[in-house]
Every structure is written in C-alpha cells, then in structure tokens.
C-alpha cells in the first residue's frame, strides 16, 4: 500500500508560517491532506526546536525534500523513487533540490517576490499562483529532451554555423527595442544573446529560456509577458517581448514600458530578421545537435554535454545511432542517452567536480543545501576525470579550469581509450567554435 506511485513526483506548496496548502502539482493522485499536513508539521516542529529538516530517504529510492524560501513559502517535494529517478538516492536528492529552487524562482518570475512574501489574501494568492502552473509542470515533468539547463543551471545553447551575423542582428534588434537584453532562441536553446543577457544570473537565464519555450509552445506569433527577475529585480517587473521568427526560432527582448508589442512587431522584427531568414534556416537545421556541422565528432561519441564554467553555457547532443555492425550490444535509445547523461552529470558533480554554486546561490541557501557538496570536500587531491562503465554504455567526465565535459560512448570502445575520446572531443569542439 502506498500513496505515491513509483517514479512519480509530487510538489507541495504551503505557506511557511501557517501551513496553509497553496497548491499541489504532479502525480496523478494527490496525497491525502493528512499526509501533507504531517509533512509540513514535522518540518515546523523541528524548526521550533532549532533543527531544520532538509531531506529524507526511503527504501526503493523514495525521497522527500523540504525547503523554506524567504521564510514565507514552504516547498516540499515527494518522489516515489522507482524506475524513473532512482538509482542512487544521492543523485535523486540533487535533482529534487534543483527542482525546488527552480520552482521557487519560477514563482518569483511570474508573481514577483513581494506578492509571495507578504501574503495578505491567501485565496487570492492561490488564484494567482495558477498562472505558474504550466511552467511548474514543465519543470516537474522535465520531459523535454536535450534541455539540461534546469539541472545544470547553465544555459542550453546552440552553436550556429555563422554566429556573427546572428549576434549582430540580436544586438541591433535589442538596441532598437531600447533594451540591453535580447536573445535568439532556436529549438529552445539560446543561439545568440546580447552581452547583458549573459550577465543575468545563470538560473535566470535558464528560467527565461524555459518560459520562452513554454510561451512559444502555445503557438502564438508574439507575446508581451511581465516578468520579475528572481535575483536581478525580484520586485520590479520587466516586459518580456517574444516574436516568433520561424517555427522553432524566437527572438525576445526584456524591456521597460516602451516599445509597445505592436510597434516592435511591425517596425523592427521585419527590418532586422527578414534578411537573415536563410541564416535562421541553417540554424534550425543544426537542430538538436546544437553543434554546427563544421565540428566533426568522433564516431564513438554517443552523447555529450559540454559546459563552459565561465560563461555558464552548455552544449549537449545525443547522436542518432548510425548503423552498427551486427553482433554488438544494442545501443541505448536516444531518450535513455539523455537520461544517462543527466544522471552521470549529477553523479560526477555531487561526488567529484565542483558545482559553480558560489556564483548564483546566496550564502544562506548554500548553508541550507550544504549537504550536496560535503563529499567533494573530503578529497585531499583534486579530481580531474572520472568514468563509469555500466551495462549499457561507458561514461567519461572531465573537468578543466574552463570546461566540464561529459561523454557517453558505446561499450565497444575500450576503457583506456575513453580518455582520448573525451579530450579530443573537447579540443575539437573548442577549437572549431571557440565555445
């Protein structure tokens, strides 16, 4: 008998002070109210005794993670473990911690911090929070293949074949819209953005990309959406203008009261982007590979995730399997590759590599989730590379001062060659694109 199915994740949101449930998302069957009450109750009870409960693990990979944000909002996530998240509990916990951070940021993004911290009318807040649901659901399901930013907090990027043209166009377009923040999103990944856009806090960039993806999925040609920046301006809203250039390619700017959506759409979109339609088509053709064709990957790379630790950008791709000679073990499916890539990323970063938390997380939040990196600190020497051989494939991760690279390779590649594969892949991509 259990209330939560294996593999499902349920998110609970309550007010921190009074424990009034605000909303529940995820999982087909909502947890009974008594359970929600007790989950919140144990945390509050601990708080009264100077003990902050942060996570809990059960057999079979079940997990519960508690977080209180700004002393006002309590988020609890309950994961049923099982097929989906399981594996190592530690890995799962990091995923859930990230999820809670993202959900909170997303609530701030949509509603602004003031409304969340000074709750006057709970019923009204409940109603207002509905506007976040689509975004929260997207975060919860995390089904979109090839988008790892929610986890890595590095902006998923796409490296276009001719970046300078697009860069100039984005810069010019943003300038014309009287804004310093502009970006071009292709297949849900950032193809080009103004310098200021990259200066936003990495979680904000990731979240904005997610928002744009969900807006563009709605199918509208353009929209004007008020957003708060969770770290940059949590209390003052900006306008996010989004225009669809081609199916799969959107351009957005963050701006103040002017220009109006209509004037921008009629006046500027055509002017800047019509000449670049062919370039955009090329860009779309890059597709989910994220890498231009000029980059020749070694054939024995199944999937890769490359993170630039300085710019907090990431490129990732999974290659569709080319025809394999018979007799070899079957390669993992594409979806499975993404899954393994994610899990391997969490595995490596929780145990060996540093996560760049210092940049984007406030000190008190660091303290709250200090448990994620306690193991890394135990090493007296610096881990550089690591690899895993599992029954499905081999994974190799490496870290340099500037990059982190995670590569999946088929089992047929000898283990001792993995290092060469990885280092060559890194130098190939960096050499060809300057990423």
């Amino acid at each position, binding site marked *: 008998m259990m209330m939560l199915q294996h593999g499902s994740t349920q998110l609970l949101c309550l007010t921190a002070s009074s424990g009034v449930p605000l909303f529940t998302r995820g999982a087909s069957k909502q947890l009974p109210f008594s359970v929600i009450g007790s989950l919140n109750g144990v945390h509050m009870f601990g708080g009264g005794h100077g003990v*902050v409960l942060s996570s809990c693990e059960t057999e079979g990979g079940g997990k519960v993670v508690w977080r209180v944000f700004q002393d006002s909002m309590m988020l609890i996530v309950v994961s049923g473990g099982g097929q989906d998240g399981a594996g190592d509990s530690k890995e799962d916990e990091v995923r859930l911690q990230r999820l809670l951070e993202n959900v909170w940021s997303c609530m701030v993004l949509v509603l602004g911090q003031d409304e969340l911290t000074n709750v006057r009318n709970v019923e009204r807040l409940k109603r207002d929070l509905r506007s976040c649901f689509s975004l929260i659901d997207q975060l919860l399901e995390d089904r979109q293949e090839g988008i790892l930013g929610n986890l890595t907090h590095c902006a998923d990027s796409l490296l276009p074949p001719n970046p300078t043209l697009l860069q100039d166009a984005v810069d010019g377009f943003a300038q014309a819209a009287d804004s310093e923040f502009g970006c071009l999103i292709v297949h849900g990944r950032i193809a080009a953005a103004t310098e200021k856009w990259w200066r936003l806090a990495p979680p904000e960039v990731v979240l904005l990309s997610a928002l744009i993806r969900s807006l563009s999925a709605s199918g509208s040609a353009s929209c004007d959406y008020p957003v708060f920046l969770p770290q940059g301006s949590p209390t003052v809203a900006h306008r996010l203008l989004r225009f669809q250039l081609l199916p799969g390619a959107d351009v957005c700017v963050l701006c103040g009261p002017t220009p109006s959506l209509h004037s921008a759409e009629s006046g500027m979109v055509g002017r800047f982007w019509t000449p670049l339609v062919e370039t955009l088509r090329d860009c779309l053709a890059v597709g989910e590979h994220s890498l231009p064709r000029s980059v020749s990957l070694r054939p024995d790379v199944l999937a890769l995730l490359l993170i630039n630790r300085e710019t907090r950008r990431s490129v990732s791709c999974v290659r569709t399997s080319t025809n394999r000679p018979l007799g070899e073990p079957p390669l993992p499916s594409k979806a499975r590759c993404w899954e393994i890539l994610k899990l391997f990323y969490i595995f490596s970063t929780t145990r060996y590599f540093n996560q760049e938390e210092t940049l984007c997380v406030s000190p008190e939040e660091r303290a709250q989730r200090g448990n994620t990196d306690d193991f890394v600190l135990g090493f007296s020497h610096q881990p550089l590379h690591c690899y895993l051989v599992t029954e499905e494939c081999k994974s190799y991760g490496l870290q340099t001062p500037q990059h982190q690279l995670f590569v999946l390779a088929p089992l047929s590649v000898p283990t001792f060659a993995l290092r060469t594969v990885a280092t060559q892949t890194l130098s190939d991509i960096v050499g060809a694109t300057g990423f």
Partner: protein
Amino acid sequence: MATADARKCINTNVCGGKTEEDGVEMHGSDCESTSSFNSSDFSDDLEPEWLDDIQKNGELFYLELSEGEEEAALANANQGVATNHVRFSEKEAEILTEQNKKQRCASRTKGEPTLKRLARILRRKRRPSQRKPGAKDGGKENSALSSAPASILKNQPAQRQAVRVQQLKEVCVYLNPKRLAGPLCEGGGLLEALLGVVHRASWGRGLGDPPEVRQEDRLTVHGLIPNSPAIKCGQILIGDVLVAVDDVDVSSENIERVLSCIPGPTQVRLLLETLAQMDDGRAEDTSSVRKTKASPPVSQLVRLLWGEDTAELQMSIAHVPHIVMFLSLKLDSASPQEEEEILYQYPASEASGQLKGVRGIFLTLCDMLENVTGGRILSSSLLLGKQLVHVGYWKESNNLLVIGLPAERVPLLCLQTVVGDVVRTLKVMYGSLDRAFCQADHAPRLDHFFCLFFQLLIQPSRLRDGSSSAPPTDVSGTLFLDGLPAVRWLTLPPEIKMEVDTVLSDFESSDFGEMSEDFFGLRRLYAILGSCLFYKSYLIANHLPKEDLLDVCLYCQHYCLLPLASEQRVGQLVIWREVFPQQRASTNNPGYSQPQGRHFLLIVGLRHFMQCVLLEAGGCASAALGSPGPDCVYVDQVKATLLQLEVLQAGVEERLNAPPAPCLSCADWFLPAARDRLDSLASSSPVFSKLAGAVRGSSGGSRGRSLFGERARRSSPQRSQSDSGSEGQMDAGTSLAPGLSPHSTPDSGRKLGGRRDSLGSGGSEGSGGSGGLFKIPRMKHPNPFFLGTLKKTLTERETEEMYNTMKLTSGAENTLFHYVVMESVQGIFIAPTHREEAQLSGSIHPQLIRNFHHCCLSIRAAFQQSLPTRGRRAADRPQGWGLGPVKEHGVLFQCKPENWTDQRKPAPTMTYWVIGRMLLEPVPQEFYVCFHDSVAEVPVEMAFRLSFGLAL
C-alpha cells in the same frame, strides 16, 4: 579503580612471569604434537587471573597490557606531552611566577616547542629509571633516606632525610579543571577543588610530627573529598605528603599556582611520600608490587575498554551532535508519560539533547513515509545550527533505532553501512535489537558500546593518542575498510600457512586432555565450530564460515581488538560471551536445519596473536544452562595453541618484512620535489653527487634513445610540466614515463640488485628511494613501447628475471601506489600491510592513501547500488533504472605538493587514477587500485593479475 589497577598490576607481574616460562617450555617442545599440552599445566597451579572479572551473566572482557607495553605506553604518553599532558618543571614554574596570567596563556600557545623540548629532556632523564621498575622503587626508597635523584627531586629540602621509614609512590590521577570536585573555598583552593586533597596548614603541628620538619611547607594530606580524583584513585592516603606534581616540587606555597596551570582535562603524576607503617596490614611484597606499578598512563582506547573514564571522552565530543535512540513506535496513549517512548538513549549531551527533542520527527516520518513511498525510511538529513547531521534509521518490529551522526564524519554514502554494521554487531551480541535495548541491566553495557562507537567515528585520533606511531587518522579509510564485508587477510608462505592450519585444526578437533569426551566420560561442554587466527590485526587463518567470520570480525572491530593486537599491547586478552551468529540464527535453508544450540565466542589474545573461537553448546555438546562463564579448560587450550603458534611468529614476521608483492611505489617519488631532495642529498654526499651528476649531465639527451638518457629525461623539469598539463595529451601521457618511478620499491630494488643493504632504509626520507634509484638503472627494463630498439639488446631470459618481482602494472616501471582486493566469497580483503605503507613514507603518500580510501567509499557506493544489498533489504529493493549496474568506475586525481613556495615556477603536479572494478565471474570480487597516470591500464587485467597473485 584503585583495586582494579592494583590487581592488573599484580596480574601483569604474576602471569607475565608465568607465560614466559611457558614460552620457554614451548620453544623446547615445539615439534611435539599438540596433544602433549596438558591444560592442567596452566590451570591447576594458579587460578586464572581473569576469574574475578567474570560478570554475573558469564561475560568476560579481560584485557591486560603486556609488561613491556605498559612501560612503552608510559614513554609514549610522555611523548604526547604537547597535546594532552601538561608537565611542569622548575623552569616553567619560574616563568609562571614572574608573569601574569595573560602572558602565561600566550607563552603556552607559542611555547609549545619549549614544552616539547622540556619533555624531551625529561624523557631522556626518566627513561632509564623506567626500564627497571623494580630497581626504581628500590632506588626511590633509598633516595628518601639518603639523597634524592637530582632529576626528580631537585632542591629537596634537606630535612626530609630525617623522616623515618618513608617511601615514595607515584600516583596518576586524572584532573579536569573544568569540573571542580568542590566549590573553591578560601581554605582549600584548587588543591581541594580540583584534586580533592584537604590540607590544613594549621593542623600540622597537632599530628605530632617531629618539630624539625617544616610542616607549613609540606603538603600533608589531611583529608580527602568524596568523589574527587584523589579518592577515586584510591592510592592517596591520609597522612601522605604530596611532594611533586609532574616532576615539579610542590609545597603549600606553590601548589595553587602549579595546579592553576592545568589548562584542560589531563592526567598528572603525583609523587607522594607515604609512611611505611601505613601498609602494615598487607604483606610486604604485594605492597611493593603495588607501588612499583602505580597505574601507568595508557591510551584512551585501553582505558575505554577497561571501562574507565568515559565521561571525559564524552565531554570532549559533547558539542558534536550525535545520538543513538531506541524508540518505541507503539505508544500507549492511555497513560502518556514523559519520554515513555524512549527505550534507550545515549549520550546525554546538549547537542544530542536537541536531537532527542525532535524525536517526534523521526517517529512521524518513520510512520508516515512507509505509506507514502512504499519503502521503509532509511535516512534523513537535518541541520543543527550550522552542522549537518545525517540520521540513519533501522526499524525492527515495533521499535525504531535512530542513529544521528555529523555529516563531516560520516557521509551519507556510507551511513547505511555504518548503521547496518552497528545493528549487526548488536544482534550478534544480544540476539536482537529488542533484547539488546529492552533489558534494563544492559544499559550500562550499551552506554559503553556506543561510547566506543561514537569515539571511534568522531575522534579516533584521541583514542589512539597514547599508542606508538599513531598514523594521522584516516576516517575515510576506517569507514571504507571497516565497511567492507570482509577481514584484512595476510597471505603467508604455504609452509607456514599449512602449519598454522594444522595447529588450528588440531585445536578444533578438541580431541585431547579434558576436552576429549573420553577424559571424563561425559559429553563435552562445547563443540568447537571453528576458529580464526589474527596476527597483528591481520587474519592469517580462518576455519569459520564466512558469515560467522564477519560476525566475529564485527565484534573485534567494534572493540578495536585488532589494532590493539597489532601494537603488541596485549599481554593477555580473554573475552567470553554468548553470541548469536546471524547466519545460524536465521536458518532458512530447506532440508537441513542447524542444530538449535547456543553459541559462545571465546577470544584469547597473547601478544600479537589473537584467536577467536566459536563454540556451540547444545547440538552435539551438552546444552548450556543459565549463563555459563568461560571454561578454564577451553581458555587454556586456546592459550596453549597460541603459545604453540608463537614458534611460527618468526616466519610470519618474515612475511611481514618481505618486500611487498605486488611492488608498490611511493607517490612522492613521482614529484619533482622528491628529486630536489635527492639533488640536495647528492650535493651533501660525494658518492651521490657523482651519481647524480651523471644523471643530470645527460639530461639533455634526446627522447629516450639510451637507457640513461631516458632516466635523465624523466627527472628533468620539463617532464613534470608536461605531466601537469596532461590535458589533451593522453597519448603523450603514455609515452612519458613518470618522474622518479623506475626504482619501484626499494625492496624490489634490493631483489634486482641482489643486495640487501637498501632494505630498512626504505622508510627514511628519500634515501631509501635513492638507494633503489642508483641501483636499478643498470638493470632496468626499457619501456617496450617507446624504446623498441633497446628491447632487442636484452635477452628473453633477462626480461624474465626482470619481472620476477611481482609487478602489477604494465609498462616499464612500477606505478602502483595502493590496492585493496576483496574476495566476497571468503569474506576477506587484501591490502598492503601497514608496514609496507610505512616503508613508503613521504609527505604525499599518506595523503594519497587517504584520498584513495575516500574515493573508494564513493566507488563502492556505486557498486552497491547495483547489487542486492545485504540482509533484509535485498528482497524489496526494486531494480532501479538509474545509471544501471556499475562494473567499473575510475577517478583521475591531481596532486600538488603542499605549501609550494616557489613563486616563479608553477607547482609540479602528479596525476593518478583510483579505479574500482567489480567482477562477478568467476568469483565475486571487488578490487580497488591506485596507480600513476603514466600507463593506461586495463583494470580487468590488473584484477586478474592481482587475484592470481594472491594464492589463497
């Protein structure tokens, strides 16, 4: 404590003599078969010294340090002066009189070197007298009458010579200035409050002492305060005169000052003058024995095992949150009593009180989450202030065991293993958790059990303080090695192994003397199920089934018996208790059922040997009634076996001293820092400088065209640079041989060079390495990959010879730093011996080993995830998708020498792999290696090479 100490001392003397005799006898007759050992030799003449220690329930834990060891412990305690003992000297006292308190503090912090120096001086002076305790006592007696030895009793007032028959005695007491025995009253001061000695200067004359003694100055004990250290130690008697505290002469003038210098809890040595007639009632010889052997300071661990002094240790970790609670899930709501649900709890510190306060969380979560996620709760993490605490759970029937540990000590990855091991140990000891916790009279024993448990996890260094050559504690190493379901094994040469096995088998057959059923025509008391033998913490023979072995080993681990034996601290160890072997308790194999008997564990240790015997009562032996204590016959028979085995000690020692196989390299050799040291060494010694000159001279040699050229290139700075920049140079890494590796271990060098002189110097800084270095190049096998031309110059035979020494890594030089192989089937693991590790001293290497162990924790956790976990958790863990079963996992590390001061050059770096590999075929094995980055290894190959080399 007084009587206990005295008894220990007496025992030491008496039985020390006895065993020596036996030992001699043994040596004479070692060729005879076992049956010649008649137990009556051992039991009839004297009743065993441990007899009084047997508790009501039949359990016995008798530990006695060997005589030599007690002295060593004393000496070592003196060495540890800077950390936990405070000593006083004339000089120090002078300083204190002149300076005010603040300065004193300052001088203490920065004055550590002085203290050390003083300690050294003191030690040097004290040593000779300590070696002969008997002589010391005699000398002291004389000194009291004639002249005092200058070292101890400087400025002895002349009038003391006039005192009648007096003796000096040394008494060690434990003082804690933070916990004063009584309030500071004006009359007594610290003497009363801290030590508990009442001295009233005005009373002096009334006692009728000769008037020529200046009573005002002398610290006569006029009274003792109840519950004070003075009365607890039992050796300070009213009428004694306190002469010195830690070698500082004291009088009523300076005693307060001296005592006020004790900064924290410490053990101090008091020198007391006592009147001979005080001992009237006792036989003269016993009193002299007692005085000779006033309890010497021993390591905290031993004290803990003796059951002393837990409060002090506990206090020192009181600020670290840790707790164990056994909670009842079934609450009788009708009569809600305060804290009714707590069946057991330890400790009672403030930080743990906070955890106790939130037990409601644990109970609720345990109750609720099982319904929510469908699995029992395993762990939760909470923040106590700034400290992260992991809490592990173990639910059994209607009760819940909760163990909270600080995350900095026990990472979440291994929390479950730690909790699982505790539970299993408790089950082995008590049968079930319920039985362990729910019986009221178990509480003090559990307190002791968990005190040890937490001390070992939280401050292992403190426990080992007093012991010799305490290595810097390696918490991860302890967690990893103790967490392995295996025992450390030492491979022995076959002939020795056979003899050991024969002796054990003979013992186990229990077909001799009083153990034979024919002897009395009665059923024997116990059937011997099997035994295992440890030598210096290594398992050298095992005749127990794996699960039983693990049970026994968990017990030994928990009570730290293995490290104890490895340091020759054990004069005699006798442990007896009923145990509940887990495998036998849960008999579920169909067709065959284990006989329903009771089991007893007998552990006997003599010096370095320790034998654990599992006995069964019931079954084919007579059933046990009540709670029988140890049977002398069995104990003596084990002792006899051990004495018989001592003949083989030389052989085992030889194995321990043998060069490590497979060869090991020291990490420091691969760093140019070591080379610098070599250079400096070379400049100081003409012979070396010539050699080094030759090496350096050819350093311009092109890429390894000649053997010496290659060597030189390796030691050139460019080499280290390229090593540090190994990114993207995988192939280059293979081609570049590591810095100073080629000499492999000094011992292999010895073997190759055919000389013995490098042995032994291996441990010393660099010189051992250099010894190997300058011998090997002549014989060194060239790198087959890159010196193809050279290879032809060596004949096949030479090549064979070259590889005679067992080398695990491929390539020309030995790049293996460390390894651990675990054989899951037999429940043993093999790792380089402590001595091998010690021989490869160096600054980086111990660090590397710590890092290796920490990494192994992670690797093993990754393996565990894909295996059905131990015990009950096997069945209901669904095979998660996750990353899938992990077969092999490796991590590449980079290390730099610490405090690199050279600003101009970047610090040289060395990279190495830590790789774990799990094999399920042909037998389940886990193996972990750590080797230098220069050779791309195929771990499977290494695994096979390693396991074939084991010759189990």
